[in-house]
C-alpha cells in the first residue's frame, strides 16, 4: 500500500516538474485598473486569475499536446482605449506574449481590434456589447457575448409581451450602451403592442431619482425598464423601494449581476430582471456550477453573472483552441473561427465575429438565486412577478 502511494506521489511530482520545466506561455492583457471603468475591472481580473490558477493546478496549458505553465502579464490601461491599443502593441512587440486576453468594455475592444488585425494576432474578446462590433474586420477578434442592443430590445419586448405587459415606463442613462439599447427597445415595444407610457433619459451623475420615480409611479405602467448603469441601478433600487414602486416587472440593464448589488439590497432585489446569458442554475452547462463554486471558494463572493462569466468563457475558448492548434497564429485563428467550444455558458461557435449559438437572454433574482428566465430554450425558471 505504502509503496503504491510513494510511486503515485513520485509520478505526480515528476509530471508536475516536467510541466514547470517547460517555458511558460506568456498571456498578456490590459485592464482599467484606474479611471472611469475601474469599478468594472475586478470582475474580469478575477476570472482571468481563477482560470490561470486552475490551468496551472492542472499541470499547465495544453499547447497542442505539451503542457506548459501560464504566466499572465497585465497592464493598467487607465480606462483609456487609446492607451489600451498602445499597450497591446507593446505586449505583442516588446513583451512578445504568446497569447492575448481581452481588455474591458466596448471602446477598448474596438481600439484593440485594429492592433490585433495589424499584427494578425488572434484574440477572443468578451465584454464588448454594441452593434459596432459587427463593423470590425473579422478574422482576429471574436465576441462571445449575445447581449447586443439590437437583439436585447426585441427579446425584452417579446418576454414582456408573453408576460402580458400592456405598457412600460422606460428611463435611460444617457451613456452609450443605454442609449443604444433605447434606440432598439422603443420600436420593439411598440411593435409588440406595448405602450411606452414614459420615455425619459437622465445624466450619469444623477444623485436623486425621486422626480423620475414619481413620474413612473404616476404613469401606471405595467413594467419599468431602466436602461441603467451600476451606480444608477443602486440609486433606482434604493429609491424605488422608498417610493413603493410596485410594478410586477422591473428591468435594470447593468448592475444587478454585481455581488455588491445583492449585498446592498438582499431579498429586496428579488424579482429584479436584468441582462445576462449565464447562470450556474443551467444544469445542461456542466461547467457552470463548478465554475461558480470555485469562484465563490476563491473570492468569497458571487461572480458577476455577465462580465466574469464572459471573461472566463473567453479564456476557456482560447484554452481549447490552443490545445488543438498550438500557438501558431494562423492555426489558432482557424481553430477559433471554425471550432466548437464547451464553456461554462454551454457550446460556443462563431459566425464571423459573433457568437452564433448563445441566445440573448435575461436573468431574474428569485429567492436568492439568479435564474435565466428568457428565452424558454435555456430558461432555468419561469419569469415571476415581483
Amino acid at each position, binding site marked *: 500500500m505504502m509503496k503504491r502511494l510513494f510511486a503515485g506521489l513520485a509520478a505526480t511530482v515528476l509530471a508536475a516538474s516536467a510541466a514547470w520545466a517547460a517555458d511558460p506561455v506568456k498571456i498578456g492583457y490590459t485592464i482599467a485598473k484606474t479611471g472611469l471603468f475601474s469599478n468594472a475591472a475586478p470582475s474580469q481580473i478575477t476570472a482571468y486569475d481563477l482560470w490561470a490558477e486552475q490551468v496551472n493546478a492542472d499541470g499547465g496549458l495544453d499547447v497542442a499536446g505539451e503542457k506548459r505553465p501560464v504566466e499572465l502579464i497585465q497592464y493598467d490601461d487607465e480606462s483609456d482605449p487609446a492607451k489600451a491599443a498602445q499597450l497591446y502593441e507593446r505586449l505583442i512587440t516588446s513583451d512578445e506574449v504568446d497569447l492575448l486576453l481581452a481588455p474591458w468594455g466596448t471602446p477598448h475592444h474596438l481600439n484593440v481590434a485594429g492592433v490585433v488585425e495589424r499584427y494578425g494576432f488572434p484574440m477572443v474578446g468578451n465584454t464588448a456589447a454594441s452593434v459596432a462590433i459587427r463593423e470590425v474586420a473579422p478574422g482576429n477578434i471574436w465576441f462571445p457575448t449575445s447581449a447586443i442592443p439590437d437583439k436585447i430590445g426585441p427579446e425584452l419586448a417579446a418576454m414582456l409581451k408573453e408576460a402580458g405587459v400592456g405598457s412600460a415606463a422606460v428611463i435611460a442613462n444617457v451613456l452609450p450602451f443605454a442609449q443604444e439599447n433605447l434606440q432598439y427597445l422603443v420600436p420593439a415595444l411598440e411593435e409588440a403592442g406595448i405602450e411606452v407610457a414614459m420615455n*425619459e433619459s437622465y445624466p450619469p451623475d444623477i444623485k*436623486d431619482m425621486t422626480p423620475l420615480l414619481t413620474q413612473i409611479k404616476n404613469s401606471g405602467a405595467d413594467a419599468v425598464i431602466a436602461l441603467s448603469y451600476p451606480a444608477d441601478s443602486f440609486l433606482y433600487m434604493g429609491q424605488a423601494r422608498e417610493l*413603493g414602486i410596485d410594478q410586477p416587472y422591473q428591468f435594470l440593464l447593468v448592475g444587478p449581476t454585481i455581488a*455588491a448589488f445583492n449585498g446592498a439590497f438582499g431579498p429586496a432585489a428579488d424579482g429584479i430582471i436584468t441582462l445576462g446569458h449565464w447562470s450556474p442554475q443551467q444544469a445542461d452547462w456542466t461547467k457552470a456550477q463548478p465554475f461558480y463554486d470555485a469562484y465563490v471558494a476563491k473570492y468569497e463572493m458571487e461572480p458577476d453573472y455577465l462580465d466574469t462569466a464572459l471573461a472566463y468563457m473567453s479564456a476557456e475558448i482560447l484554452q481549447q483552441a490552443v490545445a488543438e492548434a498550438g500557438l501558431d497564429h494562423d492555426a489558432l485563428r482557424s481553430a477559433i473561427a471554425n471550432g466548437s467550444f464547451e464553456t461554462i455558458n454551454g457550446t460556443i461557435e462563431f459566425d464571423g465575429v459573433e457568437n452564433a449559438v448563445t441566445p440573448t437572454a435575461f436573468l431574474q433574482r428569485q429567492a436568492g438565486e439568479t435564474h435565466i428566465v428568457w428565452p424558454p430554450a435555456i430558461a432555468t425558471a419561469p419569469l415571476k412577478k415581483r
Partner: protein
Amino acid sequence: MLETVFSGQLLFAAAVLGVLYAVIGLGLNLVYGTMRLLNIAHGDILMLGAYAAFWWFTLTGLSPLLTLPLVAVAAAGLGIGLYVAFFRRHLASGAHVAVVEARSLLIFFGISVAIQNAMAWAFTSTPRAYRYLDGVWHLGDTAMTGNRIAALAVGVGVLLAMLVFLNRTLFGLEIKALIQHREAARIVGINVDRVQLFAIGLGFAVAGIGGVLLSMTEQITPFMGFPFTIGAFVVIIMGGLGNIRGGIVAGFALAFVEIYLVTLTSANLRSILVYGIFVAVLLIRPQGLLSRARRA
C-alpha cells in the same frame, strides 16, 4: 403635476440631498476659507469614511453610525498630518494666495491619486455596499428609508453643531476671523498656526462624516470621490468661497433646484439646470450667494 410638486416626497428628497451637499461643501469650505488650500482630494476623504463604515459594519455587524466619532478623529488626524507635512511651512512663509492655491492644488492632486490607488490596491475596485436601516417609514403620504432619515438627522446635527461652534465659541470665532482676514487675525493675536491646524482637522472630519452617511445609500469604490469633489466646489463657489453660511445655503439651493426643476422639466436637463444655475450665480453674484463684494 401640482400635487407632485407640493408632495412631501419631493421635499424629503430635496432635504436629504441638500444636507449631503451642504455637509460635503462645509468640509471643503473650512479648509479653503482658512488657508486657501484647494483640496481636490476632498472626495477621497469622503471615500475613506465610506470604506471605514463599510468594513466596520461588515466585520462587526454594528451600526455604521457608531463609526462617526472614530472616522471623524481619524480623518482629522489625516488632515493635520498633511498640514504638518506639506502646508505649515509654506503658509507660514507668507506666500501669495495665488501661489498657495496653485501649490495646494498640485499637492492635493497627488494625494488624491495616491489615496485612490492605495485603496484600489488594498481592497480592489470591486464595488461594495451594505444593508443598514433599509426599512421604509411612512409619514402621511411621504415614504422615507431609514438610512436616508439617519443621513438627514446626522447631517442636520453636524451643520447645526458647526454653526453654533463657529458663532458661539472663541475658537470658532477665531476660525471665522481667519477666514475673514488672515493678516488682521494675526495682528489681533490669534495663533494662526493653531487655528489652521484645527480647521483642517475639522474640515477633514466633516468630510469623513459625509462619507459615512453616503456609504449607507451609495455603492462604495476607491474612485467614488471625484464627483463629490466637483459637487463640493460647485457648492462653495456658489455660496462664496470661504463663506460657511453661504456654502450651506448653496448646498440646499442646489438640491432644491435639482429636485424641483427636474420635476417641472425633465431628468435629462438635470446637469444643464444645475450647472446653468451655477453659472448664472457666478455671473450675477460672482462673490457668491451670501458674500458681499470686496472693493479694491
